[in-house]
């Protein structure tokens, strides 16, 4: 060894600074914390060093962070609301190309009804046929995509993971039954099933939302949607539910395979011999030991969910105007193709860059989460 000493890069020093700083702060509140977590903190640093050495991983992370930041801040920084139809102020706003300036006059409908302050506005990315500012709609759309992806990923995969854990661990008849159900789901195209469900469910979801005002107000806040648009929101939520139902079989199969090898570990048998309950063995001894590959898959899948949700909207299911959804914006814009090219290019780019970000990050995580990578870097950092 020793032929190659790892030079700490600026990013690595930044990592040191941030990690040590945060740890120092926590340590001040809870004395002794830093010492107890020493090993974990140094592992965390090595993990981040590993990320720093992967340009594609960094690019992916940057794209993902950028997307998340926009999704959170979007509705607050957007120049207009997602449903502000500027044609009521200035007929020129209809299909306005990028960079066009529209004028909002004092006392116009725009001013009085839509609440847009008078003045001149430059539409950086143009507007659609209703004169809705594309930039604003893309920002709101980022929120829609992120929330849909989080809602789907918070439930769908975990159904699969739970079933996969049980199938793999229990084996026998239970395994057979679960995996045959999985086979049926996988044999049936997921997108078609989702389409069928999106066609059937909206009324029920809307009825549910009307019956539960508390849930409704949470959903409205999450998606940054106005109260009068509960109907369209119900259709968007339908997509979420449809994706829950089609998103688990892949995970069940993946996890079952990993459990089959993980359960052969002696410590799993030892846990059984010590009388640890099955649920706890699965949760505490098997799941964490297969989490690495699972995390990679979950990250990659985040992008896939965004893509599929956009695809469903593009097919006219899920979000409907005036809600802002990238897929739907492309669908609506396609009627004016190729004259209003911006209506397709910008939302298309948004989807592409976001999904690309998750994919690059997921691929990089494969290497980063491998303990061997960390050890190699550790040796080099210590200059051995």
């Amino acid at each position: 060894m020793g032929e190659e000493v790892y030079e700490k890069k600026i990013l690595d020093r930044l990592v040191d600074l941030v990690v040590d700083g945060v740890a120092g702060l926590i340590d001040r509140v809870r004395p002794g914390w830093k010492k107890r977590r020493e090993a974990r903190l140094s592992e965390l640093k090595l993990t981040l060093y590993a990320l720093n050495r992967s340009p594609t991983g960094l690019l992916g992370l940057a794209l993902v962070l950028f997307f998340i930041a926009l999704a959170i801040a979007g509705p607050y920084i957007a120049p207009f609301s997602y449903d502000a139809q500027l044609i009521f102020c200035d007929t020129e706003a209809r299909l306005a190309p990028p960079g066009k300036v529209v004028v909002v006059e004092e006392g116009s409908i725009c001013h009085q009804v839509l609440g847009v302050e008078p003045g001149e506005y430059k539409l950086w990315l143009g507007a659609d046929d209703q004169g809705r500012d594309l930039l604003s709609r893309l920002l709101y759309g980022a929120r829609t995509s992120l929330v849909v992806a989080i809602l789907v990923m918070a439930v769908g995969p975990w159904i699969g993971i739970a079933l996969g854990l049980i199938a793999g661990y229990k084996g026998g008849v239970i395994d057979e039954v679960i995996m045959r159900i999985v086979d049926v789901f996988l044999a049936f195209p997921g997108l078609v099933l989702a389409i069928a469900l999106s066609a059937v469910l909206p009324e029920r979801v809307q009825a549910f939302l009307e019956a539960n005002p508390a849930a409704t107000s949470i959903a409205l806040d999450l998606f940054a949607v106005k109260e009068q648009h509960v109907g369209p929101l119900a259709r968007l939520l339908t997509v979420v539910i449809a994706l829950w139902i089609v998103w688990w079989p892949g995970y069940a199969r993946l996890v079952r395979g990993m459990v089959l090898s993980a359960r052969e570990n002696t410590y799993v048998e030892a846990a059984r011999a010590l009388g640890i309950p099955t649920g706890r063995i699965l949760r505490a001894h098997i799941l964490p030991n297969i989490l690495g590959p699972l995390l990679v898959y979950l990250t990659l899948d985040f992008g896939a969910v965004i893509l599929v949700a956009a695809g469903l909207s593009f097919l006219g299911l899920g979000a409907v105007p005036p809600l802002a959804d990238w897929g739907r914006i492309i669908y609506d814009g396609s009627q004016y193709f190729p004259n209003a090219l911006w209506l397709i290019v910008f939302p298309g780019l948004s989807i592409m860059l976001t999904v690309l970000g998750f994919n690059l990050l997921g691929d990089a995580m494969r290497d980063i989460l491998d303990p061997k990578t960390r050890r190699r870097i550790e040796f080099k950092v210590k200059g051995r």
Partner: protein
Amino acid sequence: MVVPEGCDPIIEVRDLKVNFYTYAGVVKAIDGVTFTICRGETYCLVGETGCGKSVTSKALTRLIQPPGRIEGGEIYYYPEPGKRVDILKLSEKELRRIRGSEITYVYQDPSAALDPLYTIGYQVAETMKAHGLVSRIKEGVRRAVDILRTVAMPDPEVRVRSYPHELSGGMKQRSVIGMAIANRPKLLIADEPTTALDVTIQAQIMDLLLELKRKTGMTLLLITHNLGLVAEYCDRAAVMYAGRIVEEAPVRELFKNPLHPYTQALLKAVPNPLARMDKLESIPGSVPDLIRPPRGCRFHPRCPLRMDVCSRERPPEVLRGRGHRVACWLYTDEGGVAGG
């Protein structure tokens, strides 16, 4: 049944049969094993690799997993004298209560028996929590310090926060023993507890087990292929061959007067440090294929003293002297010549 006088049984196994259903065929891993372990003794199961020692020990709390299955026999556990529990009739939940608190295991390879993701203290605490000894893991970790001290772990206050990879093999095995004794078990099953350790540590670990046994009055079932350990630490021993017990006797008797040709061969294969030996004896042939085991006595193809009857019928168990039983035709009336 051959049980020493005054024996208060803690485990009673009768005619146990365990099969493994593999693609190649049905492996009759355990074929009619009968023995009794007395409360407070150290009982040994001896035999070469693959003879069914570990499977027998796992069957005691029904830890056999598919494709393996217990196909017959009876297993009784006596938590206290006179109180009989039929292990094969218990529900999974009742079994779980016994595993890890009344009957516990120490495994051969301590590196594999510890979950790499958790500290030693956490893992000890987890077994205590699973059996309601503590209500929270945090409390259990505090108590784990005492338990690690009991198993003579150096620096228990520090080690309780160590991860398995930070410990030596001996310290890992001490942790595993700590997990096993945390709930004050009545029966500790040690499955080749020293095989994965180096020789100096072996003696330390065995002494620790005996010391714990003496302090807590628990019963020890020691599974090993090491005849040295048997001679030094056991009260009674059963020799297993190809899924059956071929001979059982108090340890002194077994070493002084081995009856079964397999036991005799096994003892000859152990080097004697006091006598000059030019060549170490070995047993000709190899372990039988348990999918198609030899008919009659399973040892007969390798047995130097085999008779016609050996390949036809399973030998009956014969009682020879106090607590000494042997399954061999030599000692029956039919084959009495050689045994005479």
